């Protein structure tokens, strides 16, 4: 029942917000729903809820991603309050659809995490696209419109492929005889060993490419920098911090089935290929990137690549991938929120036109430095640890060269990011640019995220590592 609530409350909240015209009340609703959602999501760790029919159930991987989504959403909701009320740097904004769409977005993402039926999950993921498209077009600008259009078209087409993959899986299963099982995860897992291989393969490939499009794996990532750079800060944060994970979960579900089928070697290979392709391409585009929001977007591509590589390597790396998913969500959300602060004051996303953030926005500047170091994989922050786990399990396994390639690409990405961000942070702003007072919430929220990332860097609480561990086991990995 709780599962249904998790989905319905945001959805209905969205309708409510749509009905109410006052922005303030809307935001109240948003906050209330976010808090409620997080409370439920966390509560479910302690009192697990029974699966709802064969469609909805909460396994550990789904629950992990649900919790991440919920946390990021709450933070974003808090940040959104000052952002919507008085901080939008652009007069021609469209707040009236903002809150409802956010809530529907949340509902859709929740549904992704709790659905066990692949078709339902597909529908949910498609729904996330539709719910978030209007959010990207928050600022009524041609560029935003273009970004929205690309996002819609590319993701819809990609997702369509994923649906095809889903059906293929069904066909493969129906090949398994004894009345094909429905597209429910465990049923598929049971039938997997008997599936007709070619269909299974094609199914996974389609799903990987389809959901990979949404997840931002190269070379299907093309929509991502546009959408992330044009969307308002809170939305970018959600897209990067929550949505990409959900798409990743889509891939993982198929991966589970392939694992159950016994020969997952090809899937691992594919994950590695796409993972490295993404990291490499992202690194290339991060070097000398002109637009700092695009920079963060490409860094998301890179990190999605890292996740794929982690799962593809298997063993301890899968654990690392899970941990990295958490770290990345927190870091990237923080980065985009901070980018919002910078954008509000400087009014441009062109890195070259921004200088002396540390002087003009001291808090934002410091936090941006911290978040940058964190996402760049510098100790003592979370991503350092997760990347180290992935790297070392690569070196320890037979894939020494993969490990070396991995860390080399990460280094390039880090330096590329440094080359763009540090000149923005440092330096003298123009003489007239005095330090600016920043709304408390828009600084506190990223601060919390940064603190969390720092804590994860020096200390991973036992319960969390157990959860990650069991999630990794679910995905055929675990401590090497």
């Amino acid at each position, binding site marked *: 029942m709780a599962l249904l609530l998790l989905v319905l409350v945001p959805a209905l909240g969205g309708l409510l917000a749509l009905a109410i015209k006052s922005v303030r009340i809307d935001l109240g609703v948003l906050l209330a729903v976010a808090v409620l959602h997080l409370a439920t999501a966390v509560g479910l760790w302690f009192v697990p809820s029974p699966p709802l029919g064969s*469609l909805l159930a909460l396994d550990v991987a789904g629950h992990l991603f649900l919790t991440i989504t919920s946390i990021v959403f709450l933070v974003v909701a808090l940040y959104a309050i000052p952002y919507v009320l008085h901080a939008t740097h652009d007069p021609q904004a469209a707040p009236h659809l903002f809150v409802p769409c956010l809530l529907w977005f949340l509902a859709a993402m929740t549904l992704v995490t709790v659905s066990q039926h692949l078709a339902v999950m597909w529908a949910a993921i498609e729904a996330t696209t539709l719910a978030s498209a209007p959010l990207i077009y928050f600022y009524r600008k041609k560029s935003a419109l273009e970004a929205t259009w690309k996002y819609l078209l590319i993701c819809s087409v990609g997702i369509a492929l994923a649906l*095809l993959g889903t059906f293929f899986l069904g*066909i493969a299963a129906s090949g398994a005889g004894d009345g094909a099982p429905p597209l429910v995860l465990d049923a598929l897992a049971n039938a997997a060993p008997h599936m007709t291989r070619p269909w299974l393969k094609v199914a996974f490939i389609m799903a990987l490419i389809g959901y990979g499009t949404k997840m931002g794996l190269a070379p299907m990532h093309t929509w991502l920098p546009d959408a992330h750079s*044009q969307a308002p800060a809170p939305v970018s944060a959600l897209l990067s911090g929550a949505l990409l994970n959900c798409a990743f979960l889509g891939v993982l579900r198929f991966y589970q089935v392939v694992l159950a089928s016994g020969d997952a070697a090809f899937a691992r290979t594919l994950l590695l290929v796409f993972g490295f392709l993404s990291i490499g391409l992202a690194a290339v585009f991060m070097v000398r990137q002109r637009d700092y929001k695009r920079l963060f977007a490409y860094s998301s591509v890179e990190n999605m690549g890292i996740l794929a590589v982690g799962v593809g390597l298997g063993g301890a790396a899968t654990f690392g991938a899970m941990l990295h998913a958490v770290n990345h969500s927190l870091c990237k959300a923080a980065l985009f929120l901070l980018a919002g602060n910078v954008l509000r004051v400087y009014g441009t996303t062109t890195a070259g036109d921004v200088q002396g953030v540390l002087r003009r926005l001291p808090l934002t500047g410091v936090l941006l430095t911290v978040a940058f170091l964190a996402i760049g994989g510098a100790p003592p922050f979370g991503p350092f640890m997760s990347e180290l786990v992935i790297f070392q399990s690569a070196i320890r396994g037979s894939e020494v060269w993969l490990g070396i390639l991995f860390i080399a690409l990460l280094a390039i990405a880090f330096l590329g990011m440094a080359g763009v961000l540090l000149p923005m942070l440092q330096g003298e702003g123009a003489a007239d640019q005095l330090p600016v007072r920043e709304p408390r919430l828009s600084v506190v929220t990223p601060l919390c995220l940064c603190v969390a990332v720092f804590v994860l860097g020096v200390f991973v609480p036992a319960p969390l590592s157990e959860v990650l561990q069991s999630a990794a086991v679910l995905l055929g990995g675990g401590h090497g």
Partner: protein
Amino acid sequence: MTADHADVVLLVLVMIDLFVVATSRIAAAIRASALQGFSLALLPFALASDGTPEHLAHAALIAAGVLLLKAVLIPWLLLRALRKVQIRREVEPFVSLHVSLLLGALLIGVAFWASAQLPAPRAGTPALLVPVALATLLIGFFIIVSRKKAITQVVGYLLMENGIFVFGMSLAREMPFVVELGILLDVLVGIFVFGIVIHHISEAFDHMDTHTLSELRD
């Protein structure tokens, strides 16, 4: 009806595909997609023919849904959007229509070859189902990438959806109706959102061919 009827329907689908590729009028393309939706609605019966009564009932439900959405609502939405934006009604392809026709034929060939590579889904599925589904899919994709105007790309997307839906048909009986409905609703909402965005585009750029939509780049 039997699986052979199904094959007839499938052939109709392919012909509609070719028509959409060949036509120079957007409205015509949209109407064709409506017709395709209608013939899709027939498919469930054809496939459920050998099934039990509740299979038939299930099929009826699905058919009804398809008919309502793909044959009526969505085309109506698109035509409305087309009417809203006063534009020239030609499709304006990147490649000339003759060439695209040939390419369409080629794609159909590819589809048949590819489906020959894959083992047959299962006993009782019509022989044409997989190739036609693939063909529709590919042609839809082809239309998306070969047309300038946003709305034509939506039509292409619609065709892709239909192609995938044909696959879905072969699994109809495993699929709970709720799920089918969810998928259909998604498509509907999708087209709806597409329509809105197209409207905005036409307002912002006072035309809707998408190659001006390429300002965001590195």
